[in-house]
């Protein structure tokens, strides 16, 4: 299988380096978007990356609150990645929280119960994957505000849940990729987003183009990559700014003004 050509986003996150077997291990990557520009394409891109790397030890647990499997499957197919096949080969666990979380509302489950149940599922899936020698497990959460809705607004429970998941990253070497909405938390004093941003080693902010609507640019990205292990030389290239254009079969990333 040929390696995909890396792009600006991969370089900024640090997953372009083929010598580094698992660049995201133990890290938390937070994607923030807003109403005007959805950040879902970053998740799709990273999901595809997780499966297209030559290391078959990659596995993904997808906690999906916002879309159904059909949607992700169709989108990823166009990116050249068959989720159904990956699921059959036990590399892809899909936790459909969109339908499951809602259908049992008659069951009178407590707010905490939903998240505890979800965490148990994740933990079980992770340990099963580790036993199958899938060393690098990625937990994808789409998205945090809907997780809050599922927990009926109890942000403490959501934080607990995220901390538990975060423990997995240090204990077993999982990585977490989560999508959140920046504008939801803009005007209120909420510990949730601050804690998330503090925990996150890589922060990707997606927003509309600052200069207004353009025909061939969908928006701009800011990638904040916190240095690992306090290496000083990394500080220089910490913040990356570039723009993107989303297509069905991939996303183009380019520096502002550099597009032909």
């Amino acid at each position: 299988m040929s390696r995909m050509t890396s792009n600006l986003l991969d370089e900024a996150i640090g997953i372009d380096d083929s010598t580094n077997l698992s660049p995201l291990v133990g890290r938390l990557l937070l994607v923030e978007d807003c109403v005007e520009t959805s950040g879902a394409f970053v998740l799709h891109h990273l999901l595809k990356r997780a499966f297209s790397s030559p290391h078959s030890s990659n596995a993904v647990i997808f906690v999906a609150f916002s879309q159904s499997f059909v949607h992700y499957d169709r989108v990823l197919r166009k990116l050249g990645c068959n989720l159904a096949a990956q699921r059959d080969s036990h590399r892809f666990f899909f936790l459909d929280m969109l339908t499951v979380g809602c259908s049992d509302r008659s069951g009178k489950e407590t707010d905490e119960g939903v998240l505890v149940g979800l965490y148990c599922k994740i933990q079980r899936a992770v340990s099963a994957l580790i036993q199958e020698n899938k060393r690098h497990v990625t937990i994808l959460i789409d998205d945090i505000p809907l997780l809050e809705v599922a927990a009926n607004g109890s942000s403490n429970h959501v934080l607990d849940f995220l901390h538990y998941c975060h423990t997995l990253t240090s204990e077993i070497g999982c990585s977490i990729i989560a999508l959140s909405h920046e504008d939801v938390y803009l005007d209120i004093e909420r510990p949730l987003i601050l804690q998330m941003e503090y925990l996150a080693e890589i922060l990707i902010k997606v927003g509309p183009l600052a200069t207004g609507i353009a025909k061939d640019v969908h928006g701009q990205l800011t990638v904040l990559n916190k240095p690992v292990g306090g290496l000083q030389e990394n500080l220089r290239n910490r913040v990356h700014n570039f723009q993107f254009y989303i297509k069905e079969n991939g996303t183009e990333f380019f520096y502002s003004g550099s597009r032909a």
Partner: protein
Amino acid sequence: MAATTKPRTSSFSRNLSSAHSSQTPGLKHGPNGTTFISSGIPDLDKILCGGFPLGSLVLVMEDAEAPHHMLLLRNFMSQGLVHNQPLLYASPSRDPRGFLGTLPSPGTSKDSKSRDSSAEQEKGLRIAWQYKKYFGESQESVNAIDGKYEFCNDFDLRKPFDRHFFSGKHVECVSILDSSSLSTTLDRCATFLSQVPRFGIQEDFITWMSHDNSRNDGNISSAGRIAIQSLCAPQCDHSNMEWEMLSFLRSLKSMLRSSNAVAVVTFSPSLLLPSFSKRWQHMADTLLSVKAIPDEDKELANLLTGYQDMVGLLNIHKVAQINTQVPRILEATTFSIKLQKRRFLVLECLNQAPVDGSTGSSYGSTGSCSGSSKTGSLDF
């Protein structure tokens, strides 16, 4: 439906938007395996590149001081009635059924108004011998004259539907005023959606595509419409239960995804906390907002042509992205709502009025100041 319209199972899907519409009235195939129903406003369908995709949640942000969202709701509901699609309407009023009396009936904006009156008499002469069979016992649908339904009709806002028109239709009305209304409404939506033939999983989708004619029996065509008006209205008991409302929306969205129906929910963002308003907006697949324009706004009147005919502004914030990751870049996001002949709803791009040189200093001065842009190129 023949094999030509069957979706491919490979990763390459044919763009079916140009293909002929399906046999079910009021449904149209879109790209990425989606199916559109009409919003009831021809211009809005055009702007949204087809209409509302089935399975999507449409949120409309109200103007707190004007009832412009009702225009969208009425046309959406009327279009459903014309296509014989089951309809669920929920509103914070005590008697939601009363709203049905205000729904506009289809008319034709192309012809002059003489058509409505003359069609009655001429029908017997011109078309009765040939097309009599297409008129049922009721003659309400002008668009049925040529034997097939149009995807989208023009609606005459001054001509309400006749009462008897609702008799054979599947129309449910729910009041969302009471305290337990959210869960009740959700249950009503669930039962309503379960009566609409559904498709869900991909494999089923194909069989659904090939069998939809057989399932399309009786009065129920295969697309449902849910219209919920002013979900967070302050007179509702649930209006201070922010998380319950969000949870309602989430459940509604999840039910919609697995059925072929569209829900249009209007809400007033000013009644919600800003952060919750944002959460609602994120929930939407298609997000629109309407705004009234002030009667005597001299500045705007100078700036825009046709200001006198405008009744309001429509903003498009989000267009549904189902089964795709590519967002649509629209030509414009703000449109003016106008009433054509005081009857038909039309949307137009905002046009800046040309300011003539004698009065307007702005146009002339910028032309000379920023000479590099226009006059500069002429120098070469």
